[in-house]
Every structure is written in C-alpha cells, then in structure tokens.
C-alpha cells in the first residue's frame, strides 16, 4: 500500500517538474520566434495580397527581447534611482489587491446568484438572461459611469474611494463565469442522490450543503479560475479607462505615451500584467490542489 502511494506521489512530482520545464521552454520558444521574425521580417511592415498584415520588425515596433529584459534593471526615469522592475512590481501588487477584492466580491455574488437560481426555477428564468446581457455591456462604457456614481456616494461620512470603482469593474467581469458555472454544478447531482436525500427527509438547505454543493465543486473551481483572470482584466482595463493611479494598467498607458523614445519601456508593464494574470489563476489552482488533495479522482463529475 505504502509503495503504491509513494510511486503515485513520485509520478505526480515528475509530472509537475515536467510541466514547469515545458512552461519555461514555451516562453523561450516565444522569445526565439520573436527574434526570428525580427531577423527575417520586413523592417517597414509588409503586405499580403494588398492587405497590411505583416507587422514592422524594426526596433521601435519590436524591441529586442534582451532590450526589454534589460529595461527592467534601468531606472524608470533618468535621474531617479528607482529601477523599473520595482515600479512594475509595486504596480502589479496594487492591481493584484484590487483584483483580489474584485474576485472576492464577484465570486461571492456569483455563488449567491447561482444558489438563488438553483433554488427557484423562476429566478433562473428571470435572472439568467440578464446575466448574459450584462456581459455584452462594454467595460469602457461602464467604467466612467461607475466612477461617476461612486463620486456621488456619501454614506454616513464614508466616501467611495476611487480604487473601489476598479475593483467593482473587476467583480463585474468575475461574477459571470462563477454564476453560470456554479449553477450548472448545483444542478449536476444525479436524480438518485436527490431521491436519497428526499428519503432522509432532508431540508433544501441540507441537500444544498451535503449534496448539491460538493457535487458542484468540480464545476466551481474552473469557473473560479476564469473569474480570477477576468477580474485581473477588469481591473487593468478599469485602471486605463478611469486613470486610477498606482496599478499596472495605469503604468501601461503612461509608458505607452513614451513609446516614441523608449519603446522597450511599455513592454515591461505589459509583461507585468501578464504575470499578474498568471499569478491570480495560479492562486486558484493552489487552492484547488489543497482542497481536492484527499478527493478520489473518479468522484469528480
């Protein structure tokens, strides 16, 4: 028994190491492809059948990979001694916290809605179409409205902080996958199990806690992963849209203005935003691994 467990564990470790190596290799592959295109691609862009499809390969449009990486170790502004990696890191940390707030609000709201919809068929029929419609509203149209509403909120001496608008927009993108995924999960338990619960005269809440919710977890976890990266997108776009200071989105747009003279700079912030998205969904994966550690594989779905 022990040996079987050890072999299983070893196999798991090997799989994880292999996955990590593959990730690094894929990054290298992208970097090599980038440099390869720079070497052979047209300096001033090119046309295919009259369409301008080939991007420019000059150093202004596509800085060398090493230039972008070296940029991290140079000061943000000449004359200041703050290296750009620390600025990007601070910006990513700021946005990370906002995304976490948005993720928490969004997934709580999404779970609540899904329970409501699972409980009352009429709620599902009434709410679900609006959830779908809500996601067709462009974020950039919503952002100024949220800022404007927030600016007018004064509840008992509490004023709406500006960062809250960005977090709310993160939540706006995050709640949807959770609501839809959890609804699917909450209604996924087989009829026989429901009948068993009925035979125990279990109340609706007991059925929810002991049957529906555990059965929903395999559906909820992937939707939480989606929600995590969606909240990052929401926060970054909201920062750009509303000009919230301190985060990675704001850095992207500020550095983009300097692309004329310092093209590598904006990429440092763009990579920061990508890393942020990875970190956020990695966090959910870790939580998933922790919670599912004792769950037999075949029990899922």
């Amino acid at each position, binding site marked *: 028994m022990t040996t079987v467990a050890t072999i299983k564990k070893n196999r798991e470790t090997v799989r994880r190491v292999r996955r990590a190596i593959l990730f690094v290799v894929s990054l290298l592959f992208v970097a090599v492809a980038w440099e390869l295109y720079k070497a052979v691609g047209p300096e*001033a862009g090119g046309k295919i059948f009259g369409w301008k499809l080939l991007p*420019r390969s000059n150093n*202004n*449009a596509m800085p060398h990979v090493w230039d972008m990486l070296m940029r991290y170790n140079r000061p943000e*502004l*000449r*004359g200041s001694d703050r290296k750009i990696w620390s600025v990007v890191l601070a910006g990513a940390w*700021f946005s990370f*916290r*906002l995304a*976490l*707030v948005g*993720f*928490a609000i969004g*997934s709580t709201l999404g*779970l609540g809605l899904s329970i409501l919809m699972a409980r009352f068929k009429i709620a599902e029929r009434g709410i679900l179409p609006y959830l779908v419609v809500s996601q067709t509203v462009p974020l*950039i*149209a919503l*952002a*100024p409205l949220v*800022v*404007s509403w*927030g*600016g*007018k909120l004064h509840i008992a001496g509490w004023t709406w*902080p*500006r*960062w*809250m608008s960005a*977090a709310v927009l993160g939540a706006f993108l995050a709640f949807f996958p959770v609501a839809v995924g959890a609804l699917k999960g909450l209604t996924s338990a087989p009829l026989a199990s429901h009948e068993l619960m009925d035979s125990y005269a279990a109340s609706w809440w007991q059925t929810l*806690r*002991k049957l529906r919710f*555990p059965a929903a*977890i395999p559906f*909820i976890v992937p939707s939480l992963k989606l929600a995590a990266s969606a909240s990052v997108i929401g926060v970054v776009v909201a*920062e*750009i*849209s*509303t*000009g*919230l*200071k*301190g985060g990675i989105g*704001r*850095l992207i*747009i*500020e*550095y*983009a*203005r*300097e*692309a*004329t*003279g*310092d*093209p590598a700079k904006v990429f440092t912030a763009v990579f920061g935003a990508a890393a942020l998205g990875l970190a956020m969904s990695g966090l959910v994966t870790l*939580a998933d691994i922790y*919670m599912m550690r*004792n*769950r037999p594989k075949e029990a899922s779905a």
Partner: protein
Amino acid sequence: MRKSKSWKLAAGVAALSLAAVACGGSDSPSTESSAPAACETTTSVKLQLQWFTQAQFAGYFAAVDQGFYAAQCLDVSILEGGVDIVPQQQLADGAVDFALSWVPKALASREAGANIVDIAQIFQRSGTLQVSFKDKGITSPADFAGKNIGNWGYGNEFEIFAALTKAGLDPAADVTLVQQSFDMAALLAGDIDAAEAMTYNEYAQVLEAIDPATGKQYTADDFNVVSYEDEGVGMLQDAIWASGERLASDAVYKDTATKFVAASIQGWAFCRDDPQACADIVVSKGSKLGASHQLWQINEVNKLIWPAAGGAGMIDADAWDRTAKLAQETKNLEGSTVLTAAPDAEAYTNEIVTAALAILDGLDVDTKGSSFAPIDVTLNEGGA
C-alpha cells in the same frame, strides 16, 4: 468527509475576501489636500482634470502646494482623468465641483443638455500643431492635399478640419485622415506625413526621440510645424467649467467658484514666475514624465496663458465667437458639426473671473503678465 471539504471552500472564499478587503482598505485615495491656516470653515472642492498629472495642469498643483487654495479656505482635491473619463460629464453628473475641458467639446456637451458654464478661460491660445518632417514640404494647411494627416479624433480634430476647409480642401476627398495614437511613433515610422501634436507634449516627444540616421536626438530643424493658432483657426482649449445650476441657485458655490478661480490663477502666476519650481512640484506629485519634458511643458503652457491682456482667465468675446463659429461651420467626415446652433449667452460668464482678479489685485498678484518671457528649455533624450 464531503461536508467538511465544501465548508473549507466556503471558508477559504470568505477568508480571501476579508484579506482582500483589508489589503485594499489600507490604500488612501491619491488626492492632494492641504490644511487651512486661519479659516473658520474649509470648503471641500473636487477638480476633475482631463488627463493624468502633468505640467498642463501645473497651476492647480502649484496652488495646492503653495497653499493658495488653503489661503482662500478651500480644500481642493485634484482628480486625474483617464481614457474614458469625460470631465464635463463628471461635472454635469455632480461627481465633481469643477472640471477642465476644451471649449468646443464642453459646448457640445452643453448643447446635449449638460448645464455647464465656462467661468475662466485659462488657456487663451490654442496649442495644437501639425508636425511633419522637413522633406515632406508641408508648411501650410494647403500642403495637406494628398497627404496622410494624423488626428486624434474624439473631438480633438476640428481645428484640422477647419484649416482644411479654410484652405479650400475637402477633408473627405483631398487628404487621407489617419487615426493617431498617444505617441508619435507613426510619424517617425512614416505612416503619417503630418501628425497632430500639442506644443507642450507630443511635439516635445519627437524632439526627445533619437534619429536612427544620426544617432542623435531630432532637432526643431528636422520638422515643419503648422500652428492652428497662427492659421487663424485656433479654438479655445483648457478652461475651468462650473455647474450652471449651482451658480444660479447656490450663493456659497458661487463664492467658492470665485475663490477657486482666484487661487488657480495665482498658481499659474507662480508657474509663470518660477517655471523650474513649478515643474518640480508636478514631478513630486507623481508624474511619470521626465524632468526636462515637464519643464518644456510648463514653458509651452505659459506661452498659451501669458501675456493675458485682459487678465488671466478672462474670456475674450472674439476668441469665443470664433471658436463657436468654427464649431458650427466645420464639417467632419460624417458631415456633422460640433455644434448645430450658436451657444447661448449663458454658456460663459466673466463675472466670476472678474471678481477673482479683483481678489488677486488685493494680493498684489500680477494677473496680466505683460512682461512675460518664455525660458529656453533643452529636452533630453526620452524627456529625462
């Protein structure tokens, strides 16, 4: 077994939200305020900028930093703009007390029903340019014919259309209009023959870039510049806008507006007299633009404000009428104009700024700047 796991997930989500709220809550909003010295009550004022912190708004930051607002018993929070923040909309919605906006755009909002009033015309001149490389031979709007002309759109392009119309060109047929982004890379790459640029920002960006042919920075000799102000089609730009409704009904707000305009102009006078100190203030407020770029910007902005023959902030009826007329007559590509009718007489008032200038006269502040002379600024690579 199962029960405990599902509750762990719920507890995890709850703990996560608590942690997140705690983390997020520790951040105070990034506004600047200063405590008053000898005021019985201080009035909180929110000013909405059009864009991020930069020297274009130096006068307001200087007024905060130097305590000019505090001396008027005002506690001013300066709110930065963003890509989708429309200052006059924030003002009309009541989210802020005052907003900065270009006149044509704000008048379009007014025509659409926003009751906003121009109470101080801070920039007396237009700072819009069309910049092109020397070898393109573009020295006047007539030379735009057959060229790729960059423009920002979103209501920032009307001076271009007015200049084209004035030169007898059809914007839809005689030129190729190209949507421009925030940077000037398209001009340097040759996608655009002549790019729209503000004297105080984008023009400096090209002068900070490196010419790959020489390995040195570009100089003003490399470019031709068409100034819309000089071409007679300049439209009024940065002005302080207030709520028309509150001006009419709320005497306290009107008094606040007067004090706010007075202290703001005092801030601009400070920037005129000491551009270096003013640029340092803006840099210290967290602008991401380099020091020489900021100094260039404050110097160019000063040229748009000073000298102010009628006193800074005074709305010149001729310039106003010209702006309104161009806004009604210039058709864009879709054949529509910024305004469909002349703005009503209540769209601007000189009452507030007149009272504000009187306050400043009492403080011995030079509000005309008749002896103003710009300084020479050397731009460093990348604006550093």
